[in-house]
């Protein structure tokens, strides 16, 4: 679970880090990613682990288009307070529209992908590890590594981080900040959709499934330090771990209680998050 949380949280952190936009629709893009993976599995017998990769390009394009059509209107310049209100209303509205449209078109009935490995387990010493979860975890970590390499080893990735740090100075270097916003949004949406695809290997799919996860994504991102990519990655892993440990001692319905307790503890001890920087001192 932790690996998937890590990938979805990186998507959210990337969008927030570069654009300073809190995207409440991330959970819904995840849900759409699950559905696309589901239909690929039903129609083409495509394994969801591969389906999760196949959804990356179309969702990247979807993210770029949503940015170009909607988000450019509420980012970059203008009164910051009013921009923030507008962003909030826009992404919340987008979330509602996607959830309800999906319910209308695809019905609220939950669906599930049947894979051979969903009910199999590896024996790891005394532990039993569900195979679907193990494969999904490995894929998730691979995706995170690809993103990390992109951000730290390529000019485009560095430009993305530069645009997040100092948009004005980024422009002076010839970096098109608006294009970087589109890129960040596209990657963020593609990542969360891929995470949805991985989740679909063992988790039921329904139009409202995103809500349960968006809260965890927020916790992971804040836990790691707002906007920090490695922070979001570790935050996601920590949440998965805490959930698993909580499950050992508390009933299933309370598995998120442990997450919130850990969350409060971290924020109490380290208010800037695990990887956050303190306020800049110039």
């Amino acid at each position: 679970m932790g690996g998937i949380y890590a990938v979805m949280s990186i998507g959210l952190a990337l969008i927030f880090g570069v654009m300073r936009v809190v995207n409440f629709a991330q959970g819904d893009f995840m849900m759409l990613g699950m559905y696309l993976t589901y239909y690929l599995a039903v129609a083409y017998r495509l394994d969801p682990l591969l389906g999760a990769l196949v959804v990356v390009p179309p969702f990247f394009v979807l993210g770029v288009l949503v940015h170009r059509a909607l988000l450019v209107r509420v980012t970059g310049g203008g009164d910051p307070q009013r921009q923030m209100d507008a962003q909030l209303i826009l992404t919340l509205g987008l979330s509602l529209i996607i959830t309800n449209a999906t319910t209308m078109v695809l019905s609220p009935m939950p669906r599930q992908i049947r894979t051979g490995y969903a009910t199999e387990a590896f024996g790891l010493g005394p532990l039993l590890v569900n195979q679907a979860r193990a494969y999904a975890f490995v894929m998730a970590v691979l995706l995170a590594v690809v993103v990390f390499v992109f951000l730290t080893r390529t000019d485009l990735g560095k430009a993305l981080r530069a645009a997040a740090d100092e948009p004005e100075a980024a422009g002076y270097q010839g970096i098109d900040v608006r294009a970087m916003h589109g890129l960040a949004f596209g990657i963020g949406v593609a990542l969360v959709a891929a995470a949805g695809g991985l989740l679909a290997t063992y988790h039921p799919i329904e139009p409202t499934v995103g809500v349960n996860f968006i809260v965890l994504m927020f916790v992971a991102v804040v836990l790691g330090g707002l906007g920090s990519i490695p922070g979001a990655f570790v935050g996601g892993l920590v949440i998965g771990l805490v959930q698993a440990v909580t499950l050992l001692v508390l009933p299933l319905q309370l598995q998120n209680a442990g997450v919130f307790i850990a969350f409060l503890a971290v924020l109490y001890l380290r208010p800037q998050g695990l990887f956050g920087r303190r306020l800049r001192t110039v």
Partner: protein
Amino acid sequence: MLSITGLSVAYGGLHALERVSLEVRAGEFVTIVGPNGAGKTTLLKAISGAVPAAAGRIEYGGRDLGRLAAAARARLGIAHVPEGRKVFPSLTVLENLEMGSYRAEARRRRAEGLDMVYALFPPLRERRGELAGTLSGGQQQMLALGRGLMARPDLLLLDEPSQGLAPRLIEAIFEAIARIREARGLTILLVEQRVVEAVELCDRAYVLETGRIVLEGGRETLLADPRVQRAYLGA
């Protein structure tokens, strides 16, 4: 190379620049001096495209910059070293310099550019793997200058490179600027509050006050002007 006519810039209703005209010829070193809030930073931002012009015309290399975005102007060879340095704090020193050579013309000759910047500012070589946010103010200024030079610009805009630095560092920075100019034959437009040093370095200077050019002339003319002596040189 750069020709500005009748430029006005407004923030909301407030006029920061009013009908400013100035000229920078290829290879020239021009300085703009003026008190706080005169509009010096605004003028540089209007040239590099960070703020829109309300009226007037900015021509660069015979071409109207019009509504070109900042990134497009940077690609034409205008490098802006902004007030307050604005290095990328969460990128390493090396990554900052790499971003300076983001435009295609500079990217091809990145290694050469790095050698030049490291020769000019040795501390940057030593700390190239560290995050720019951890550098001292003087080193950040070196980095901001180095980043600007990495672009292999034709026109270099410098906004108060001496701001907040100790006198010894200011001297080093000005010395570096003089050396860059000699070595690269750059065209430079410098904004400064340290009038003496800035005017000493330049070929020509303008005095900007409350959004208007009130005086212009060659270095000698300006240094001899009684108004300049009274207002800026404490004579």
